[in-house]
């Protein structure tokens, strides 16, 4: 096992497209790091550079203490799981699993022992003589995993290994991969565009966008303390509500105003973000997670947002209400994850925005009803409208320490 370290890594394609721009990232020994981002953000390119399938334009990649920039894939001692599994169709499952060992001249008896052990762990014993075409999607996935594990490499690289599975199998394999990684403690770099996968599997998650690393942190901290608007809108499902608000001083405290919506910030909340003072009289982005909005609040002082329910989705354990409010939605597509922004219903009115609220499963709210939403002021997020970066909370380190 070995750590993987990217130092100022740049990938520029012929024609000048910058796929990866100055990537600095360390995957510690035994750590499971997920690279996540929308398609075309450079995450797969970054992974392929570690594998040696893509040349590095500039910078340095180390596996363990070796600089691997100019090493052939076979000399890097890594194993990779591909999106389409890439099983050798003309070979049986056994031959697929043993191929890497044969290439590395592992003794015959050792080959058999290792393949059989892996087959047992992955429940493939009955299928060793079959060809990939005779396997189901889940079984193929397992063979692909097995082919990586059997090699006992320095690190695993996984390129969206679950995206070809149906939803149910994906959840199952997600847990299985996480379990295998925990048992073997092999350094793993995992690429996905699915933020749920990223949040559930990784020790740490690295969010990328347009070739630039946005934030690396534990899933929980990424969720609680997104470093910028992009991470805030990308992480979390359903996505965070984002409003364009004006920050004003009223009496002794601060107030966020947007259309008819008024959110008064208690003194202690404002005090936790000293930089907010600089934004008085300016506009900024206000983020509210759907679960920070509730129908009724025990806190009578919690600011209320009045709106009209457009749609209520009953999800069993909870209900998701789309509420149209008289406020200005954030319209900065260059700063947010556009696909997440599209999850919000388009407002009916001209100068209104829709907010998503996670309500109790037995909520009485019906489409068309007027709702008073209570906002949890302790869970508000503030972002600079020019740079998109979060207005930091004092006394909290920007990133978590490496595991």
């Amino acid at each position: 096992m070995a750590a993987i370290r990217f130092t100022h890594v740049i990938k520029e394609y012929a024609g000048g497209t910058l796929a990866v721009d100055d990537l600095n990232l360390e995957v510690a020994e035994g750590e499971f790091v997920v690279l996540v981002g929308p398609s075309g953000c450079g995450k797969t390119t970054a992974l392929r550079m570690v594998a040696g399938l893509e040349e590095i334009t500039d910078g340095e990649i180390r596996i363990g203490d070796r600089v691997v920039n100019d090493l052939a894939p076979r000399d890097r001692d890594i194993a990779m799981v591909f999106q389409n599994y890439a099983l050798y169709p003309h070979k049986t499952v056994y031959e697929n699993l043993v191929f890497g060992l044969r290439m590395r001249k592992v003794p015959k008896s050792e080959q058999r022992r290792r393949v059989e052990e892996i087959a047992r762990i992955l429940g493939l014993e009955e299928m060793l003589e079959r060809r990939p075409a005779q396997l189901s999607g889940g079984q193929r996935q397992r063979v692909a995993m097995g082919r990586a594990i059997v090699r006992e490499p320095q690190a695993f690289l996984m390129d969206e290994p679950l995206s070809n599975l149906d939803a149910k199998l994906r959840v199952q394999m997600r847990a299985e991969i996480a379990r295998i990684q925990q048992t073997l403690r092999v350094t793993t770099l995992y690429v996905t565009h699915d933020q749920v996968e990223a949040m559930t599997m990784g020790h740490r998650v690295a969010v990328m966008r347009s070739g630039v690393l946005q934030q690396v942190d534990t899933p929980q901290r990424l969720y609680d303390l997104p470093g910028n608007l992009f991470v805030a809108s990308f992480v979390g499902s359903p996505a965070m509500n984002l409003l364009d608000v004006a920050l004003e001083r009223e009496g002794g405290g601060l107030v966020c105003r947007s259309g008819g919506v008024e959110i008064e910030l208690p003194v202690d909340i404002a005090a936790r973000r000293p930089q907010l003072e600089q934004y008085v009289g300016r506009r900024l982005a206000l983020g509210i997670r759907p679960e920070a909005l509730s129908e009724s609040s025990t806190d009578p002082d919690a600011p209320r947002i009045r709106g009209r329910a457009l749609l209520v989705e009953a999800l069993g354990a909870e209900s998701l209400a789309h509420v149209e409010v008289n406020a200005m939605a954030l319209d900065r597509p260059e700063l947010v994850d556009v696909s997440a922004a599209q999850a919000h219903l388009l407002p009916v009115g001209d100068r209104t925005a829709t907010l998503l609220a996670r309500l109790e499963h037995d909520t009485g709210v019906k489409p068309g009803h007027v709702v008073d939403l209570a906002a949890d002021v302790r869970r508000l997020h503030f972002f600079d409208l020019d740079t998109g970066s979060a207005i930091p909370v004092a006394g909290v380190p920007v990133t978590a320490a490496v595991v």
Partner: protein
Amino acid sequence: MSSLTPLAPTPVAVRAPARRIRVRRGKLVRRIGLNAVALLVFAVMVFPVYWMVATAFKPGRDILDYKPHWFPAPATLSNFTNAIHRQYFWTDVKNSAIVVVCVVTLSMVVAFLAALALSRFRFYGRGAFIVLILGVLMLPLVALIIPMYITMSRAGQIHGLNWVLGVNKLSGVIVMYMTFVLPFSVWTLQGFMRGVPRELEEAAMVDGTTRFGAFVRILLPLVAPGLVATSIFAFIQAWNEYIIAYVFLQDGSKQTITVWLASFTNLHGTDWGPLMAGATLTALPVVVFFVLIQRRISFGLTAGAVKA
């Protein structure tokens, strides 16, 4: 239709069987028609072959009789003995075999590598190269014979090239055949290769092979059906080719079997019996080669169809 009948009003129910019979009759007529056409096509294609084989077994007078003899009765093998004992038969069979083996082997090796380059690498001029290959395929061969002959005969006078190039040399004919077998082979093979996902080779490289090792161990077995199909084409082209061989090879001892066949026609007319026997013998290797290899094709196609 029958499941709808209970819901339908009576008049429809009465009319329906009549229509069904008409439909059935229409289907029958269509089927008979299609079968008749198929039989006709079959006859047109197979009859000449049958006539060749039948004539090969007929005694001379039956062949030239004004009343056609549909079956070779009484049958004789004398035409075959005649053909085999004719001058240069075995020599020319050997010549043809040399040409075919060389053309098939060379074109498969070169075409595999060229197709690899076309399907797996991006390089400057790649598009133009593909167009060029197609362009060469579009040129009629006959139009090129005279320029090719002149080029070849001059090349044969250049010291250093004349060990392989030049007229009246089997190696020269092999080079000529490559000019039309190769573009076709490259074109077909690169199509097969595009069907094989690149990730398979990448997986092999990560698993521990070199880049070339990945081609040989992974790509080669997967495009085997393509290689087989292409080699059949190359074999048939090289074995059956006549015009180039006729123009380029003058000595009887250096000719190929198709040119040898043409020698049955001379100033005194055509010696039909031995000619047909010779033609039958000439066709045999192609049939045998195809029968041997066609099982590999069907096996190969199922293996290649699998996309992991």
